[in-house]
């Protein structure tokens, strides 16, 4: 049974005349690694500030560990939550150790100096984030990555059950961005709860256990990354046309974004693509981004083209692995081909398993054949495919062109 550590009830925040957040409700349990995502101006940082009690609530309630945030004193809050802000300017030449030691402030009486124990804690966390060797170096002379790790050590030295990070990776190189997330993941595995405002959706999806998606002052999604980062949510939050898919190479959630006209003229044009073996990837992407209604077939499961189709959530006829196209698939393929306004036959290789695709192509009302490699080199059936292909390209409804010509043709439309 996990313990509920943050409770947010119907919370609204108004700054000046402007409504920043409306009716936010969520509860976060100990040990979660929560990413707060959303477009600029959605109120991500404000939410984090409100949960720390830095901005007043216009309505609703925030509880930390079951106690309303308004009943906690400054120091009590600082013993509950460590907060790392976006841009910290460490002036005057303070050293890393001096900065990290300020994390011990909530535990000291006003007249006390840092004790040996506090120093040991500071050193321990600097070791954890790999900046122990820089203890006596002035922070303003450090690189962005070093500085963020020093600040992370400071936040950890506060030894709070909750850690809030407001875009800690904003000004960092790619390597350091991922490093910060990895440290956070490690910390959350030790039972601490982390809330991070993140810009990079892919990193947030990769490392966080849960995401909160904010847009236009509201929380529009809350849940595990694969439930939150969806085509529909991204469209709603960012107005972004995107395909969300599992990247087969990295094993992570990946996002492919593209520009598309909202009133797209092609949405009623049905196009069927006959492809396989990666020959269709470029064609699928090109047509998908232009908003055509696509169908694909027949492709072997696990084929590169099948993965692209899956990424874009396209209806795709899949055959049986390592066997010829079966009768039901062949029938369905022909139905789709006849129904399509036009059909594209990619530059694919023909063998025993997929020769039926070439047969089916004859059914097309209008057929575009992409040919970058001569059919002879793609024929693994000792001329059978070449003969059929030769017959096909003779048909009046067929146009043969190279891929580049195909692009030009689409540009013109």
């Amino acid at each position, binding site marked *: 049974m996990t313990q509920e550590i943050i409770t947010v009830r119907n919370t609204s925040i108004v700054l000046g005349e402007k409504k920043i957040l409306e009716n936010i409700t969520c509860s976060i349990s100990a040990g979660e690694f929560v990413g707060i995502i959303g477009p600029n101006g959605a109120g991500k940082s404000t939410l984090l500030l409100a949960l720390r009690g*830095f901005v007043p609530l216009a309505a609703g309630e925030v509880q930390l560990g079951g106690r309303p945030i308004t009943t906690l004193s400054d120091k009590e809050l600082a013993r509950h939550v460590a907060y790392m802000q976006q841009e910290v300017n460490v002036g005057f030449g303070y050293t890393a*150790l001096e900065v990290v030691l300020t994390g011990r402030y*909530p535990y000291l009486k006003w007249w006390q100096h840092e004790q040996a124990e506090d*120093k040991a804690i500071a050193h321990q966390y600097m070791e954890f984030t790999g900046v122990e060797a820089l203890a006596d170096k002035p922070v303003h002379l450090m690189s962005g990555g070093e500085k963020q790790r020093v600040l992370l050590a400071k936040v950890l030295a506060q030894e709070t059950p909750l850690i809030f990070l407001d875009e800690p990776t904003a000004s960092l190189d790619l390597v350091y961005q991922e490093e910060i997330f990895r440290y956070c993941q490690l910390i959350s595995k030790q039972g601490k709860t982390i809330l991070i405002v993140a810009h990079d959706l892919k990193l947030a999806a990769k490392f966080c256990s849960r995401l909160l998606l904010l847009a236009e002052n509201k929380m529009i999604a809350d849940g595990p990354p694969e439930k939150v980062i969806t085509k529909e949510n991204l469209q709603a939050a960012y107005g972004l046309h995107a395909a969300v898919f599992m990247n087969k190479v990295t094993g992570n959630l990946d996002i492919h974004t593209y520009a598309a006209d909202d009133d797209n003229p092609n949405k009623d044009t049905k196009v069927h693509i006959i492809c396989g073996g990666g020959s269709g990837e470029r064609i699928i992407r090109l047509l998908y981004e232009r908003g055509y209604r696509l169908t694909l077939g027949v492709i072997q499961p696990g084929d590169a083209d099948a993965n692209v189709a899956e990424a874009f959530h396209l209806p795709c006829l899949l055959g049986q692995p390592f066997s010829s196209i079966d009768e039901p698939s062949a029938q369905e393929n022909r139905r789709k081909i006849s129904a399509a306004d036009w059909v594209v036959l990619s530059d694919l290789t023909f063998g025993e398993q997929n020769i039926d695709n070439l047969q089916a192509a004859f059914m097309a009302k209008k057929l575009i054949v992409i040919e970058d490699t001569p059919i002879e080199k793609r024929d693994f059936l000792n001329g059978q495919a070449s003969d059929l292909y030769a017959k096909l390209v003779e048909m009046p409804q067929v146009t043969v062109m190279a891929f580049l010509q195909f692009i030009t043709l689409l540009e013109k439309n």
Partner: protein
Amino acid sequence: MLKKTQGNRAKKAWKIMMVLSIVLLGMIVFSISWGTITVPWEDTLAIIGQHVPVISGYFPSVNAEFQAVVWNIRLPRVLVGVLVGAALGVSGAVMQGVFGNPLADPGIIGVSGGASFGAVVAIALGLTSFSIFIMPMFALVGALAAVSATVFLSMSRGKIPVMTLLLSGVAVSMLMGALTSGILTLMNEYRVREYLFWVVGGLDYRRWEHVYLAVGPILIGLIVLCLLARHLNVLVLGEQEARSVGVPVVALRLLLLFVAAATTAMAVCVSGTIGFVGLIVPHIMRIIVGPEHRWLLPSSALAGALFLVFCDTLGRMIFPPNEIRVGIMTALLGAPYFLYLLRKTQQSGGNS
């Protein structure tokens, strides 16, 4: 090994403070001994020693003229210098910390403007002849009123944004300046001279009364500020940083501002306005001992005292028997050095 280097920094700060104390004592003895009437330094020590209870009997007697010069004229002057220098040095360091800006100075939030206005009111009313305490008291009230006005003007919804505070400070200072000028144009020439004498800070004619007036408030101010040094360290990292570790930012900032302003105002009361000490001394000490305020504040106190006594002594030595007032000396020495520092910082691109 790393903990050792951290210890080294503390050790270094101790060493610097020891050296500063010794040099300051030497400077005090030299400053008391040197003048139109030169007193041998052992006589100086003997005269001072005779006034210390318990050990007074161990010192040989010195002639009455030396006694009068050392005890009644030069010692109070030097002591006022020490107090004023320490007050200005520490207040400057604190202000720079509160504003997070190495160019801040107590004058920036209206302390000097308010003190001058208070002084000119006292002179205009002709109250200064009643007691030497009248003008300092008016100056103190003026300074605190000006700082209060600045803080009140910049406070909005329980917060004091630093930028607004600086701008309010400028506005209040200008208003005080205008009022001061307005009163000055209505006064007769004798009183204008009296004011001028005060506004160009100096240590001449300082008596034991001035020491008694200033010693309590300034020492209390210095002790309070030094006790708050660790909190100031956190505050310097920025408002948000400070709040996130539980610092009561507004209360701490107000406390530091008022204590530093009151301490400065006390200094201004007994010496007139003296520039550049609060700017240069913390700047140099930050380079030498680092930004940690627990070291920076005490060493700024020692260095401020040393710098002011040094400037005063130098001012007396250049055209004897005439003196260059200490406020002019600090500016003459301070301004070029400060410009040099600024250029150097610009060239290296650092922000120390």
